[in-house]
């Protein structure tokens, strides 16, 4: 028996098997991820006449759609820019607190910062709307531009803090000690040493937050009111069967986002944080105890009052109005609970299937990227696997729909399986990214050791590599799973008659006040599941 497994593993280690595995990874990537994601561009090119007719020279409306599109894009960029700026202003001090202070309750603050990351954005949007815009909460802001900005600040905030904490912790404290012993007070030290050394990471975090804001749909749908951001315009055009213009707008959004990222990258490499000049008097004052405490209190209270409490408000709302919730969900004649159960099942099925598929093909792909000797090719692959990350999910869903649906290959119709395909596409980068990092961090001599001890390559992989990256695989699964569970924009475009919970939250909260409490209930369910999974992820990652 023992010998047999060895024989099988020897067989599996043969170059043909390896080649088959690599080929499967690449074919899957091209067919299921890359082509559906970028099919949009081909579609626009193929249907250019249609696009021109609808967008630029419609006999009825002329080029008014074009101006509306530009307006929507402008709003999207404004929101993203303002949100990222606020994130940086509030997030950096908090990141510094987390990275450099030791205090009791640091763990708690650390996990609270991640809260909005674990909460599906549609649920978050509803929570913020309930907090700011209804009589249950403060009733201060109506749906519209500033509520959109606040919502986007809330869900992009963790990206900035998380990445900043990472890079600041990565800066060797000895540099800071050196600066201090050379006479630089703490503010000067941060500006001239810590900040320049973590610049790249800070910019990466800002870009992440910016793109995430640019492409968000679910929360925005709930809080937008009459304002239309670009992803919302895509969704609404799709719903009105304006396929050509929707494709065109998606493409514009993607191209502009990519262009802007390129510009940011180039500019940030050229322009540094000023480190030559020092203003000893002013900076000494800023380094003092009082300004530092004031800054910490200000940023922490902003975090608590403007982010944390509004994000969890739907929970208290559900508890306070339990009677209405119970009536709307279980007693009302339209039997919302049935729909809710159905969509819960759908949500979990989609997330589970998408995660499983990505785990298998993502691992194969990660191996190709890290282990195969084709250096150039591998680094190109490494870059383009991130493609789905920069494309707004509504546009991505739309592209997947065009590719598989009746207007493209005609293989899959809107509904459950198209949702799965879409979710596979946008969760793929998360899995591959995590596994590539894990494989790269592995000491290759461990595998060599197994080989010299008589293990065939497959066995070495199974017995040494796989156990060592198992935590990362679990982390990747949880990441993909929660991401899928909370997605709205892409799902709306491809769902047909199927429903997922985030979509339900959006639909019920759009029905002007009527099913608000049912929506709150559904979103609380989502929040609990997703945040629970996120805490599990943190626990796994710590071990």
């Amino acid at each position, binding site marked *: 028996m023992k010998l047999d497994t060895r024989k099988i593993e020897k067989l599996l280690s043969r170059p043909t098997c390896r080649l088959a595995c690599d080929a499967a990874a690449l074919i899957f990537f091209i067919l299921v991820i890359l082509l559906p994601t970028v099919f949009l561009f081909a579609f626009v090119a193929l249907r250019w006449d249609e696009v021109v007719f609808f967008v630029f020279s419609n006999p009825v409306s002329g080029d008014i759609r074009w101006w509306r599109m530009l307006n929507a894009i402008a709003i999207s960029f404004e929101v993203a820019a303002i949100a990222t700026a606020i994130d940086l202003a509030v997030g950096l001090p908090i990141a510094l607190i987390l990275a450099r202070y030791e205090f009791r309750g640091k763990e708690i603050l650390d996990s609270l910062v991640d809260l909005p990351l674990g909460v599906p954005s549609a649920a978050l949007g509803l929570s913020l709307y309930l907090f700011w815009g209804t009589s249950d909460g403060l009733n201060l802001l109506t749906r519209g531009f500033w509520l959109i900005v606040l919502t986007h600040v809330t869900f992009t905030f963790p990206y900035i803090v998380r990445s900043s904490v990472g890079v600041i912790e990565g800066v060797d404290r000895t540099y800071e*000690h050196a600066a201090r*012993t050379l006479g630089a*007070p703490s503010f000067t030290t941060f500006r001239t040493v810590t900040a320049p050394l973590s610049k790249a990471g800070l910019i990466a975090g800002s870009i992440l937050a910016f793109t995430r804001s640019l492409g968000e749909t679910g929360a925005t749908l709930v809080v937008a009111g009459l304002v239309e951001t670009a992803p919302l315009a895509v969704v609404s055009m799709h719903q009105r069967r304006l396929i050509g213009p929707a494709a065109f707008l998606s493409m514009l959004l993607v191209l502009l986002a990519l262009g802007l990222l390129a510009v940011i990258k180039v500019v940030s490499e050229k322009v540094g944080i000023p480190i030559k000049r020092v203003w000893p008097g002013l900076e000494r004052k800023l380094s003092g105890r009082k300004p530092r405490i004031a800054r910490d209190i200000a940023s922490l209270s902003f975090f608590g009052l403007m982010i944390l409490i509004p994000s969890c408000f739907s929970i208290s709302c559900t508890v306070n109005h339990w009677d209405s919730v119970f009536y709307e969900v279980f007693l009302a004649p339209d039997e919302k609970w049935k729909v809710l159960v159905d969509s819960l099942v759908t949500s979990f099925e989609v997330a589970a299937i998408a995660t499983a598929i990505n785990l298998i093909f993502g691992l194969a792909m990660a191996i190709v990227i890290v282990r195969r000797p084709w250096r150039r090719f591998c680094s190109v692959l490494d870059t383009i696997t991130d493609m789905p990350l920069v494309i707004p999910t509504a546009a991505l869903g739309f592209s997947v729909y065009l590719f598989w649906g009746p207007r493209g290959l005609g293989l899959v119709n809107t509904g459950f399986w198209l949702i799965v395909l879409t979710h596979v596409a946008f969760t793929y980068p998360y899995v591959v990214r995590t596994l590539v990092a894990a494989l790269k961090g592995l000491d290759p001599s461990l595998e060599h050791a197994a080989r010299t001890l008589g293990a065939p390559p497959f066995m070495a992989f199974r017995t040494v590599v796989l156990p060592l990256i198992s935590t990362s695989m679990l982390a990747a699964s949880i990441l993909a799973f929660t991401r899928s569970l909370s997605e709205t924009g892409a799902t709306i475009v491809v769902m047909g008659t199927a429903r997922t919970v985030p979509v339900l939250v959006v639909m019920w909260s759009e029905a002007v006040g009527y099913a608000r409490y049912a929506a709150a209930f559904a979103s609380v369910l989502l929040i609990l599941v997703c945040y629970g999974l996120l805490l599990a992820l943190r626990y796994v990652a710590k071990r």
Partner: protein
Amino acid sequence: MPDVRLVNVTKTFEGGRIVAVDHVNLYVRDKEYFCILGPSGSGKTTLLRLIAGILEPDEGEIYIGGKPMRGIPPEDRDIGYVFQTFALFPHMTAWENVTYGPRARGWPEEEIERVGREMLELVGLYERADAYPRELSGGMMQRVGLARALATGASLLLLDEPLSSLDAKIAFELRYEIRRLVKGLGRTAIHVTHNQAEAMAIADRIAVMRRGRILQVGTPQELYMKPNCIFVAHFVGESNFLEGFVEKVDERGSLVRLRGDLIVRVEGKSLSVGEKAVLGIRPEVLSLETNGTKRENALPGTIERVMFEGVITRYEVRLDNEDLIVITAPSMTAKPLKPGDRVMVCIPSEKVFLFPYPERGLKEELAVE
């Protein structure tokens, strides 16, 4: 007047579970080149960081130039700090690194220029001013680190294992260069190291540290010739340690009975009759005789190993009482001996250190971790 005084300084970590510095009292004189010598984990780097203000002591007070330092942040202590890992800012050139201190203090531009040039010239790297740290060798990086620490004109220089990350040869050259610079500029220096040869070569005085405590402070000669405890005799230079009991104390010294009833006469008489004792004997004070007769302080034994180490040759001799003893002799003049040869080991009574037997055992006392 940058003398440094530490009074009862204590620093603990992890809520008091680790005592890194334990009630240390120390005085470093103005313009002195002072070394703190100790094995890794002895608390010597913590002590330096306390002086620098990177850490604050739990207890006790540190005075620099007579002024108490509690609550004063590093940037206001007028010190220079040289790091083991160099800690050159990787995003700045050698020039920007060296002039960082003057700029942070807001000196006028021409003064910054002058000091930067002077310091880089002092360490012989002015022509590499525009190089980034990654373009410099280890030795060059530490020279820049030194120039940077000196550039602010700080009269107290703190050096944390400045040579430990360098190749042996470079470290050897640089140790004298550092001393020359510090002495030339009239600064006070506190230099932390685990390398006893380095400390002996450059220090005016040395403090030997172990487990957070200072064991002995003295000139290199004092530490070597008159170690006050077993650990110092062991860590500074090298010693044989033989256990025994004090048999007799008279006007010429003491007689110590080793196991196997071997008697050794020593000059010290700090212990009383019947007390358990440890004899510390440096290998180079011992001599070997091949045909010696039985007499006082000549112990019979058999050569077990001979190790040629270049300048000296090292002999391990198993005494007839089973104790092992190491003898070194200059290679060029040493007798040709081989394992198995019978010898007499001659002990000069005036060069033996007499210590009381340590409470926690000899092995524990010698541990360097």
